[in-house]
């Protein structure tokens, strides 16, 4: 199955620093990482990894809405001591606001140390640093971590480069669709399949660190939530009931799972420890209550309910008390997801004649904005940065693909997947 070692984070001193101003695009210089071991050559050597990692970092940063990277150029190579004493005047002259330096160093045990430093070019001030020990074949993750150092220095938000996206990979015809749960790195690499495609599966939801995954499977004849450990591949039902259970979502600390359970014509929300045990009921209103999502501090829950006759968004305390409707814009509101920074709730809005569109609204019901044009956009899931969403767009031919959209708006960008994709879910930043 998917086996991922945790990166060993070095205890470099991290100076918490205020982010640069938000808003316009920031230019960041990414000259090639250096190495104190330039004489070792070949694949996996510090020099080779340094060059590959530099290119991946530039590519990561280009994929954001907030940063433009001056890509690595061999002639900008610097020496090992210059990692922490770079030439700021040179990068000022090139118009860069930020500079990312770093190194790759061989260790006696065969692994590599990768270190990265972000600087404000104007002031020469260090904005962040991180170091990692990785096996040579895990250099991509270290590069993603370096990209995160740069992104955090620019925006103050967590990096989204060392994250994973789970989704449903779809093949076959519309009449005989084959669906498999897939997990990939957020840059589209390291595709793995969690289920075999012999039964319909829906809505994978990653634990915050992408160690486990909850999803809905028709195994046994009814849709029910199952939980799979992504390291061992071990699976189990979330709760041992005959009823239909669906719409799972982890709490921000990964300790609990929200889900919906059908009982006759009713569907209500429940919460259960991620490890199992007795579920606790949160809602009792007649109607369909589903798609619950915790606030980042786990004190509140947003969910959808059609108790008023149409699907609308409601916010309640984590124990189910104080349920209050927050959507009043007309039409239907569904599939809410609370942003990791707590500022926004993403949703799907259904308007007669306009189809399904993804939007955001403040938790108090103000500031509603639609981000996508539809007509068949759904399943929004936040990036760890809270600045971006991944969602599913279905075409007129019934085929679905994954797209990313910035909170600031703009055109959605296609996320490349080997097959059609639906129900995306974006993890938090990995350890």
């Amino acid at each position: 199955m998917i086996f991922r070692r945790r990166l060993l984070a070095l205890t470099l001193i991290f100076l918490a620093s205020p982010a640069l101003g938000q808003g316009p695009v920031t230019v960041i210089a990414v000259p090639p990482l250096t190495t104190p071991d330039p004489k070792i050559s070949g694949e996996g050597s510090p020099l080779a990894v340094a060059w590959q990692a530099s290119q991946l970092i530039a590519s990561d940063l280009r994929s954001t809405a907030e940063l433009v990277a001056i890509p690595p150029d061999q002639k900008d190579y610097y020496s090992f001591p210059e990692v922490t004493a770079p030439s700021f005047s040179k990068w000022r002259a090139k118009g860069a606001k930020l500079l990312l330096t770093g190194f790759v160093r061989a260790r006696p045990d065969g692994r590599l140390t990768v270190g990265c430093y972000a600087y404000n070019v104007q002031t020469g001030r260090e904005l962040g640093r991180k170091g990692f020990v990785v096996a040579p074949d895990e250099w991509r993750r270290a590069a993603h971590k370096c990209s995160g150092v740069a992104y955090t220095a620019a925006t103050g938000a967590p990096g989204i480069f060392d994250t994973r996206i789970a989704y449903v990979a779809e093949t076959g015809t519309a009449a005989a669709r084959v669906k498999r749960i897939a997990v990939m790195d957020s840059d589209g690499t390291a595709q793995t399949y969690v289920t075999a495609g012999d039964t319909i599966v829906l809505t994978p939801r990653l634990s915050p660190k992408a160690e486990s995954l909850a999803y809905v499977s028709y195994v046994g004849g009814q849709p029910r939530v199952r939980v799979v450990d992504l390291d061992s591949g071990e699976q189990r039902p979330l709760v041992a009931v005959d009823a239909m259970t669906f719409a799972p979502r982890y709490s921000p600390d990964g300790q609990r799972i929200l889900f919906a359970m059908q009982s006759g014509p009713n569907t209500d929300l429940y919460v259960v420890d991620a490890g199992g045990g007795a579920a606790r009921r949160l809602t009792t209103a007649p109607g369909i209550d589903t798609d619950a999502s915790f606030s980042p501090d786990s004190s509140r829950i947003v969910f959808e309910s059609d108790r008023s006759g149409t699907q609308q968004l409601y916010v309640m305390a984590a124990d189910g008390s104080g349920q209050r409707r927050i959507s009043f814009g007309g039409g239907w509101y569904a599939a809410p997801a609370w942003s990791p920074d707590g500022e926004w709730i993403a949703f799907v809005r259904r308007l007669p004649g306009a189809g399904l569109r993804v939007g955001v609204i403040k938790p108090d019901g103000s500031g509603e904005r639609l981000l996508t044009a539809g007509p068949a956009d759904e399943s929004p899931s936040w990036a760890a940065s809270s600045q971006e969403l991944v969602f599913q767009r279905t075409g007129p031919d019934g085929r679905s693909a994954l797209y990313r959209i910035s909170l600031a708006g703009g055109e959605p960008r296609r996320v490349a997947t080997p097959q059609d994709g639906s129900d995306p879910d974006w993890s938090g930043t990995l350890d």
Partner: protein
Amino acid sequence: MRALLIPLALFGGAAQAQMLQRVIPGRAPPPPMLLGIDALRADFIAKTGSDKVYFGGDSSGLTEQARATLAAQAQWLRQHPEVLVRIEGHADASDTRDHALAVGARRAEEVRNYLILLGVPAAQLASVSWGKERVAVQGSSAEALALNRRVVTVLVR
């Protein structure tokens, strides 16, 4: 009887043996024993008119037409207590994934309860929601959506 004979013919000797069943004067002949799920399904459609009922947008309420179809289905099912049935609820693609699952379940439940009300033993009737996973008709036209908002009475065995 014509519709019945066609599927029965597939079963050769067994079917012919049933055709020779004696009719006792003054009493309605017992319904012939149908063999095989395909024959049962064909008979079910022939006798009840349809194995499907349709719903309005965002609705789980039974229309007059749906009630008439279900009344015929209930009558057939009462005559075939040995046949197990799965009530399969569907939603259209204009709904979101999870709500579609719940609406499909609600529609299936509505149909199941109505059949029970009409005397079909509850133990005969299982139900499942397919949400919007098994659309009958592709497309986003009003007609396509209407044809997908359905509950299908599936004879299992």
